[in-house]
C-alpha cells in the first residue's frame, strides 16, 4: 500500500510538474504571431489613448510630465528600431546616431537659415532616412553581429565628427534652438502642449507601425526575417526591402530626434553616442520588438524605473542588466509577450485564437 501510494504520489507530482511547466511555457512563450481578438485590441488601444491623453490632467506634476515627454519621443525612435529589428530582423546599436542626424539637421537648418520646427522637420526626417539607407548598404553583404558592429562604429564616428565639427556642429558644446513655432492658438512653450505634440507624433508612429504590421509589406519583412534565402527564392527583392525598412526606421528616428531637440532646445554630441544607442537597443528588447506596444513599454520601463525606485545611474544599470537577463531567459518576446501571455492564460486559450488583426506590430 505504501508503495502504491508513493507511486500515485509520484505520478501526481509528475503530472503537477508537467502542468506547472506547461503553465510556465505558456506564460513565457513568444506568441507574437497569435492574434488577440479584435475587440481586445480595440479596447486596449482606446484605453491606452485615453490614458495618454488624460495624463496632463491627472495632476501628476511637471516632473512626471517631463519624463513622460522624454519617454514618448524615445518610444517614437524605438518604433523605427522595432520595425527593422522586430519585423525585418536587422538589429542596430547605433540608432541614437540616426536620431542625432535628424536633430542636428534640424538644428543646423535652424541656426544657419533661421528655419523653424515645422520647416526643418521634413528635411530632418528625410536626412535620417537617407543616412539610414546608406548605413544599411552593408546589410546587403553582411548581417547579424557584423552589421551591429558597423552601426556601433557609425555611432562612434558620428560623435567624433560632431565633436570636431567647429561652429557648424557647435563642436562638443552643441547647438541651441528656439521654441517650436506656435500654431494658431497653441503655444508649445507650455509643457502640456509640448506633451500633446509628442503624443500626436507617437500616435502617428503607432498607426504607421500597426499598418505596416498588418500589410503585405509587413508580411514580406517578416518573411525576410524568418528565412532570407527562402524569401529571395520566392521572388522577394530582399535587398530593396532591407534598405526600405532601414529608411523607414530612419524616418521614425529623425522625427524622434527633432522632437528631442525642441524639447531640450539644446543638443550636444554626447546625446547621440554609443551609450544612448545601447539604451535604445535595451529598451526595444525589454519591451518586445515584435509587439505593437513593445517599444512604448520598453521606453516606460527604462525612463520611469529610476524615478519610481529612486535608483542612481549605477543601480539603474544593474537593474536594467538583471531585467534584460530575465527577459532573455524567461520572456524572449519581451515584457509585452509576458503581458499578452498572462492575458491569454486568464482569458483562456480559446481567446488567443480570435479573429481580426493581431496584437503584434
Amino acid at each position: 500500500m505504501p508503495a502504491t501510494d508513493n507511486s500515485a504520489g509520484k505520478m501526481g507530482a509528475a503530472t503537477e510538474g508537467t502542468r506547472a511547466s506547461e503553465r510556465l511555457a505558456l506564460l513565457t512563450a513568444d506568441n507574437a504571431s497569435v492574434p488577440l481578438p479584435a475587440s481586445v485590441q480595440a479596447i486596449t488601444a482606446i484605453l491606452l489613448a485615453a490614458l495618454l491623453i488624460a495624463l496632463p490632467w491627472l495632476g501628476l506634476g511637471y516632473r512626471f510630465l517631463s519624463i513622460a515627454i522624454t519617454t514618448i519621443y524615445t518610444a517614437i525612435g524605438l518604433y523605427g528600431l522595432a520595425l527593422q529589428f522586430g519585423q525585418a530582423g536587422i538589429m542596430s546599436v547605433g540608432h541614437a546616431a540616426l536620431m542625432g542626424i535628424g536633430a542636428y539637421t534640424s538644428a543646423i537648418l535652424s541656426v544657419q537659415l533661421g528655419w523653424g520646427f515645422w520647416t526643418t522637420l521634413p528635411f530632418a526626417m528625410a536626412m535620417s532616412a537617407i543616412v539610414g539607407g546608406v548605413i544599411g548598404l552593408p546589410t546587403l553583404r553582411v548581417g547579424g553581429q557584423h552589421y551591429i558592429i558597423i552601426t556601433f562604429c557609425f555611432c562612434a564616428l558620428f560623435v567624433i565628427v560632431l565633436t570636431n565639427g567647429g561652429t557648424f556642429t557647435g563642436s562638443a558644446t552643441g547647438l541651441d534652438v528656439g521654441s517650436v513655432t506656435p500654431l494658431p492658438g497653441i503655444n508649445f512653450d507650455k509643457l502640456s502642449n509640448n506633451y500633446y505634440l509628442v503624443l500626436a507624433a507617437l500616435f502617428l508612429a503607432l498607426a504607421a507601425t500597426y499598418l505596416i504590421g498588418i500589410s503585405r509589406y509587413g508580411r514580406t519583412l517578416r518573411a525576410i526575417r524568418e528565412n532570407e534565402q527562402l524569401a529571395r527564392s520566392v521572388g522577394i527583392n530582399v535587398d530593396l526591402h532591407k534598405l526600405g525598412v532601414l529608411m523607414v526606421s530612419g524616418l521614425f528616428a529623425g522625427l524622434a530626434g527633432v522632437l528631442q531637440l525642441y524639447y531640450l532646445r539644446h543638443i550636444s554630441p554626447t546625446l547621440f553616442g554609443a551609450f544612448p544607442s545601447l539604451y535604445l537597443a535595451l529598451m526595444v528588447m525589454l519591451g518586445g520588438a515584435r509587439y505593437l506596444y513593445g517599444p512604448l513599454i520598453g521606453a516606460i520601463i527604462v525612463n520611469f524605473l529610476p524615478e519610481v525606485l529612486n535608483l542612481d545611474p549605477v543601480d539603474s544599470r544593474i537593474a536594467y542588466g538583471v531585467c534584460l537577463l530575465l527577459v532573455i531567459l524567461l520572456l524572449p518576446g519581451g515584457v509585452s509577450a509576458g503581458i499578452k501571455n498572462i492575458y491569454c492564460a486568464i482569458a483562456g486559450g480559446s481567446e488567443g485564437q480570435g479573429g481580426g488583426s493581431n496584437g503584434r506590430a
Partner: protein
Amino acid sequence: MRQLGLGLAVAAAGLAMALQTARADEELPIGVIAAQSGSFVSAGNTIVGAANLAAQQINDAGGIKVGDKTYKIKLYIRDNRTDVNVSIAAARELVNDIGVKAIWGTETHDFSVSMAKITGPAKVLQFSGNSSLGAVLDDKAVADDGWLHYAFQSEPQEWQRSGSTAKGVLSLLTPQLKSPPKHSVVFVGNDATGQYLSSHYVKALEAEGQKVDLVRYPPDTTDFSPLLTRIKGMKPDIVHFWYNGDSTLTAFPQALKLGVAPSYFLFGVDPGIYQERSLKADVPVTLSCVPVCWGSSPFPEVKQYFDKYFGLGAAKGPQSSVSLLYYDYFFWYAKALETVGKIDDPDAVVAELLKSDYKGVVSPVPLVFNKHHQVTFATEVCMVQPNTSDQFKCAVEQPPAAPPPGDNGG
C-alpha cells in the same frame, strides 16, 4: 470664572504670538540641481555641500529680512543623475510644481543651458558655475527680454581664469627650471568643457610668450601612455593637464613614469588631494584649484570655510573647492532680496545684483557681476616642491584686464 476668562485670554494671546512668529518666519524656496550620482558626482556634490552650508548659516543667523517679514531658506535638492533629461524634469518640478525663487546648478554646460530655457521664461534666477556659459551670455541673451536675463555665471570668464592661471603657473615654475620655459603642451579632454576651456588657455599661454601645442584625449580615457609618449617626443618644457581633475589624477602618474616633461601643471587638483594620495615627483609640479585650494590656502577665511564645509560631512575630493563657486552667491542673493524688499520681483533682484557687489570667501576683492552676468576673481596656483607631497608654495595672480590677442572673450 474670572480665572477661566483670564486663562483663555492668556492662551489666546499666546496663540496670536505663535501665529505672529510663524508668519514672521516664512519660507524662501530655493532649488539645487546637481549630480549626486553618475559621472559628474564629484562636482555635483560640492554644489549640494555649499548650498547646505550657506542655507544653514543664513537661517541660523536669523534668516533673510525682506520688508517686514523674515524668510528662512528651504532647500529643494534634486539629483540630476548626470542626465540632461532628469535635469530638465527636475527644473520643471522646481519651477512649476514647487515654485522656487532661484536655482543653483548644474555642474555642466549642456544641462545649465537647457535649464536656463525653463528658468528664464519663469523668471527664476539661476546661478551656474560653468565658465562655458560665456559662449552664450551676450548682450542679446541677457537683455530684459533675453533668455538668459535671469542666469548668472558664478565662475569668472574663461579668458580671465586662464590668464590668471597661466601667469601663476609660469611665475612659480620659471625659477625652478634651468632655463625659462618656452614650449608648453596643453593636454585636455575632448568634450564640451575641455574644448571651450583649452581654447582660452592656449591663448593665455601664448600671451605669456609660450609656444603651445594642444593634444586632446577622448573622454573616459584610462590609458594615456600612447598620447603621453607622443607628447614626450615634442620635448615640452611644461605639460599642462588641463581640465578634469579626475582624469588628470589618472594621467599624471603615467606621465611621471614615462618622464614626459621637466615640469607639470595639474589643473583642478587640490594640494589636499596631492597630499592625501602621497603623490611625489622629482620635478616641479604646479596645481591649481577652482577657484581656491582647500588643502593649502593662505587665506584664513577660506580655511574657515573649508573647515565648516568638511565639518558638515562633505567629502574631500579633487573638486571640493568648486563649492566656492556656489557658496557666496547665496549671501549675495539674500543681500539683494533684503535691499529690494520683495521676494516676488525677480527683475528688481537682477537689477540689484548687477549694481551691487559682495565681499565673499572666494575672493579678497569684492565680487561684481559685469553686464553679461559674469564675475571676476583670481585663481590660486600652488607649487609642490620636488620629492615632497606636502610642501607647497602658492600664488594668486590677478586676471588680465583684457582678453589676450586672438581670444574673443566670452
